[in-house]
């Protein structure tokens, strides 16, 4: 059963085509990694799923529903959550308030439940509950960004470069948490430059190159693929 399907999606920025017909399928309960170099179109692909910008042709389905032409706000309220690149937490708000913003469309009881759940996943956030989010370390902010995305109780979560600018030890922790999300039945679509970690964790992987899917295989096979090793794993 597929969670997210992209069928031959083209995306334009003005006259420039950034995605040249991309097809991706993410099944329920999977972790799928998308790797690619700078400027390959990884973030564009994610943003197209979220509807900003909208795909100029092709179709996108979320749990069988056509979301190609839906406005961003509606897509983001239908069981999909994204952790945007660069974390983008509300630095002036406390940790708890950030989490509450994540559950903006839920009622109080639901918020309380998901908040407790997030603190279980990230005990560190519980310690910092009333601290201003901007004063925390990069790793803690990334945890908060993931926690905030989980507050809406999504069926699927999209992570855009969660390892960006973090220390290796923190990256390891973050990836462990992502693995844990799969255990809970949340589908994960992971976009990473850190190809090694991302493919290790993933059930399947896609390699994006200049706006096209170049390779598609299981995570293990991609890790063993000599082309991938040369291009993304440092030989």
């Amino acid at each position: 059963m597929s969670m997210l399907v992209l069928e031959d999606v083209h995306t334009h920025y003005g006259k420039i085509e950034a995605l040249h017909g991309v097809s991706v399928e993410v099944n329920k309960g999977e972790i799928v990694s998308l790797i690619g170099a700078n400027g390959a179109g990884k973030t564009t692909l994610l943003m197209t799923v979220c509807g900003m910008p909208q795909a100029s042709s092709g179709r996108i389905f979320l749990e069988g529903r056509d979301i190609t032409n839906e406005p961003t706000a509606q897509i983001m309220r239908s069981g999909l959550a994204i952790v945007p690149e660069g974390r983008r937490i509300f630095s002036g708000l406390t940790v708890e308030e950030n989490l509450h913003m994540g559950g903006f469309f839920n009622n109080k009881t639901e918020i309380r439940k998901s908040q407790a759940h997030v603190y279980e996943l990230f005990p560190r956030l519980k310690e910092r509950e009333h601290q201003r989010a901007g004063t925390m370390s990069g790793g803690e902010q990334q945890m908060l960004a993931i926690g905030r995305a989980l507050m809406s109780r999504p069926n699927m979560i999209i992570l855009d470069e969660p390892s960006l600018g973090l220390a290796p030890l923190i990256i390891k922790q973050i990836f462990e948490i992502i693995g844990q999300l799969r255990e809970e039945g949340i589908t994960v679509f992971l976009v990473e430059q850190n190809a090694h970690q991302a493919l290790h964790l993933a059930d399947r992987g896609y390699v994006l190159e200049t706006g096209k899917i170049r390779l598609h295989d299981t995570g293990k096979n991609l890790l063993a693929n000599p082309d991938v090793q040369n291009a993304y794993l440092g030989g």
Partner: protein
Amino acid sequence: MAANNYRHALFCAIVTLIISFPILGFNLEAKGVNIELTGAKTSTIVAVILAAVAVFVFQAYRDSFMGLLGKLPKLNPLAGREPMEQSKRVKLESWVLTGIVVLALFWPFVVSRGSVDLATLVLIYIMLALGLNVVVGLAGLLDLGYVAFYAVGAYTFALLSQYTGISFWMALPIGALLAGLTGMILGFPVLRLRGDYLAIVTLGFGEIIRILLNNWTTLTGGPNGIGGIPEPTLFGMEFGRRIKEEGNTSFHETFGIAYSGEHKVIFLYLIALVLAVITALIIRRFMRMPVGRAWEALREDEIAARSLGLSRTAVKLSAFTIGAFFAGFAGTVFASKQGFISPESFVFLESAIILAIVVLGGMGSQLGVILAAIAVTILPELAREFSEYRMLIFGAAMVLMMVWRPQGLLPMRRIHITLNKQG
């Protein structure tokens, strides 16, 4: 470095001389039908030279002067103070606000008629500033044409009273709603814009409204304005010496007291006070509702807010509409207070002053904005004895203020929300 400084200073001093000497150094005097050019008094020439010297000294030692200016914040007695606890601060703020309102209730009975009139104007500015505070301070949308909505409110009342004889109390909601509607209509196309671009579009919109009012002479009377706008009545009681409308009674006759022009002024003041309090309370309520958090979230990080499913258009539009609504409110009161309005009252400078109040008070902070509205309206009046220099003093006060406290008089402190475990 030093030589360069002196050369620059000398250059500035010469420029000062070149600019000021021809302007101040000669007088044109009318002698019969001719105009004669005479040299100015020696004192003026000395003053010009002194000014040039002052410019030279300042430019030559500019770095050390500016350094001194940078040390000024240390004079601020509150600088090293620990921030107050939230619950305490909220309580203090409520007490101060209540105190201001109680004081304001008794104000008109102890001061002169002129002061009451000025205080009414202050209250109108408070309403305007509180409304703009939603747009600029909370939602972070720079609106330079806010006065347009003020004008819509004022002209709605003026026109309706002229053509249909509507009363103040009917016009108040209509004016506010129409202003809000105008805000919404304008908001739709422009809210995709951000920052500077939005500022320019709103600036243009403000001018369009003013020029429209100025040129649509058949409807609005153009630059001649509209007069004879009725004053508010109290349950059908008029405050004039004679009754203007059939069926109304007059205030002084009903209560059997001697007629006094002050009654009307005080009544208008009290209406403005009640409306200003209502405005403050409603906006305070909004700030604590989810929509208030949505405004702030969108201001802080648009992408993050959208990733959480907030609709950018809806959130911005709500801020814009609510801001415009209260401007319409204020406009109706203004029209009633003046009895006469013309496009002259709704120039860009008004927008700029309201924006200055919001910035000086501290964006987003209600108490700060209220204090700033009082200061900005009263300061030019207090400085009246300096006659033509008063705007200079006003400007200098603003510059100093921004150097001292760039975040405003009372910067906004967010109320931190915690989810109580029981409720």
